[in-house]
């Protein structure tokens, strides 16, 4: 029986890696997904014939053995499908954060359950298993509450701005150190249950405290980091249960989260440390209206002016940002592009890696609006083309198009790679109002002589532009 289980796990691991490989290109991605789904079927199949379950099957019978599994599996599937089928694409970051929370909770619960079985009931737990369970509970708990916090912030249930208090970083680090000491102590003496439960509870608090000071626009890094932790928690579960498919899948997930958080940090020109402990920028974009810097004037353009500029353009690059998601403007962007393209205008999209609230957020939204992915360009691919482009249309983006990042060392975003929207012959910025972006700094682009601003909700404005053009 053990051989069969291991064979099925081996096939599952192979299919996971092969499936992941499919994701390296858009046209093979769905095939990869199907392979991974198949892998999951093998992994589950291998588990329901696990020797411990089979032993119970012989004693208790089919119904007693599988009743909880079947019940929770069906309820879980129903919830999973309901959430995934109904959630709008604009809310994807919240959806991902929530699922990290579930993943972390599942790992933490399995850890506690293992501890209870081997230590509390049977009274014999070796040190290595204890260490593995310790890490599992630590990462699981941290991921659980941290992701719930991220979910709350992204969905607006809790204020998205950075919540700070005195000696925040010091106390957080001290608590983290304390948790680690508890982990070591409980590894040395697994029989000390008080220590174990204290160690299991601490990460729950830590998750909340760590994410609280991080503001909305830094969420891409937080989500990717929690992605990584969820993977490490799954891997630790594998060590605790001597289950290789868990170790492998967890390691892959951990690596993926790690890569993405490096990509995100680089795109913001900031270190992990700065994102996690910086409580960067005291003003959040949703928070506080600030008047434009004294003296400088922006040029306002009416919807008609904007429509005229666009209809006269031979080439347009759209620069979307989080504002597009907030206004749900992706579909009308697609309609506009269709009209312009029918006129012979070339329309492309410049996607900054940190535009939106998670990696790839803008790509998914534009794909939803039926825009072919071949028109969605990465920053490096398209940045040289702005200077030969007639119109850059900025839809709800701010810091990612701020030229100050290129030449003003005094700016807090100096050094961050930005889209060269300022180099286009003219630039139309769609903005709700004259508010600074996340960094709380003025955007030079808005005051440039070749820039015009059209105020209002991006979706309304674009709808009117589309009406004017058609």
């Amino acid at each position, binding site marked *: 029986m053990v051989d069969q289980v291991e064979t099925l796990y081996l096939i599952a691991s192979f299919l996971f890696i092969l499936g992941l490989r499919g994701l*390296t290109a858009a046209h093979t*991605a769905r095939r990869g997904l199907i392979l991974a789904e198949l892998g999951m079927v093998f992994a589950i199949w291998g588990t329901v014939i696990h020797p411990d379950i089979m032993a119970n099957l012989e004693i208790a019978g089919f119904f007693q053995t*599988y009743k909880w599994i079947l019940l929770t599996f069906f309820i879980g599937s129903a919830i999973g499908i309901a959430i995934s089928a109904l959630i709008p694409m604009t809310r994807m970051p919240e959806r*991902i954060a929530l699922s990290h929370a579930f993943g972390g909770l599942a790992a933490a619960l399995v850890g506690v359950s293992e501890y209870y*079985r081997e230590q509390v009931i049977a009274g014999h737990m070796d040190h290595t298993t204890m260490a593995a369970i310790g890490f599992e509970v630590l990462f699981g708990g941290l991921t659980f509450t941290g992701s719930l916090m991220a979910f709350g912030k992204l969905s607006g249930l809790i204020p998205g701005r950075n919540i700070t208090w005195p000696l925040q970083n010091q106390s957080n680090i001290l608590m983290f150190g304390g948790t680690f000491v508890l982990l070591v102590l409980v590894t040395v003496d697994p029989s000390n249950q008080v220590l174990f439960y204290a160690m299991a509870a601490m990460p729950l608090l830590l998750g909340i405290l760590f994410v609280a000071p991080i503001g909305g626009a830094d969420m891409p890094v937080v989500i990717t980091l929690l992605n990584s932790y969820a993977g490490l928690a799954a891997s630790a579960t594998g*060590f605790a249960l001597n289950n290789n498919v868990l170790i492998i899948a967890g390691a892959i997930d951990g690596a993926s989260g790690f890569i993405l958080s490096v990509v995100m940090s680089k795109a913001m020109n900031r270190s992990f440390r700065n994102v996690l402990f910086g409580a960067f920028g005291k003003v959040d974009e949703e928070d506080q209206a600030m008047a434009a810097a004294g003296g400088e004037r922006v040029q306002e353009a009416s919807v008609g002016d904007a429509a005229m500029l666009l209809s006269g353009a031979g080439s347009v690059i759209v620069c979307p940002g989080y504002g597009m998601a907030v206004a749900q403007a992706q579909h009308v962007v697609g309609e506009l592009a269709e009209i312009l393209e029918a006129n012979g205008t070339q329309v492309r999209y410049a996607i900054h890696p940190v535009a939106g609230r998670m990696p790839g957020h803008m*790509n998914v939204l534009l794909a939803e609006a039926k825009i072919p992915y071949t028109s969605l360009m990465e920053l490096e691919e398209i940045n040289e083309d702005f200077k030969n482009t007639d119109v850059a249309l900025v839809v709800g983006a701010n810091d990612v198009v701020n030229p100050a990042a290129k030449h003003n060392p005094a700016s807090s975003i100096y050094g961050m790679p930005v889209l060269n929207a300022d180099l286009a012959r003219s630039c139309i910025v769609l903005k709700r109002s004259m508010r600074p972006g996340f960094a709380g700094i003025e955007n030079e682009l808005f005051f440039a002589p070749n820039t015009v601003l059209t105020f209002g909700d991006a979706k309304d404005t674009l709808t009117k532009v589309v009406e004017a053009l058609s």
Partner: protein
Amino acid sequence: MLEIFLGLYIFMLAAFVGYGVIKGVPALLHTPLMAFTNAISGISLVGSLVAAGAHYNNVSTVLGAIAVLCATINVVGGFWITDRMLRMFKKQDPKADAAGDA
């Protein structure tokens, strides 16, 4: 003791393989990638299933059952939403492509 080292070797190699493969995923697909790895990490379902089905004791069974619930939401929901996203990614002509895919 040997088992833990074997596990560490597997972890190390899998992390490198994961790193190498995922490095090649274009930014275009980063959101589907997160949903995808999220579904795969729902593999902790495997651990939960044993806890819920082996009936070691009541506490383990209840904790295991809750864990199965959470992990299933991730596995089923994660694969579902990844598919929903990937179906939206079309090359040039959306209509011709949709027909070709079906």
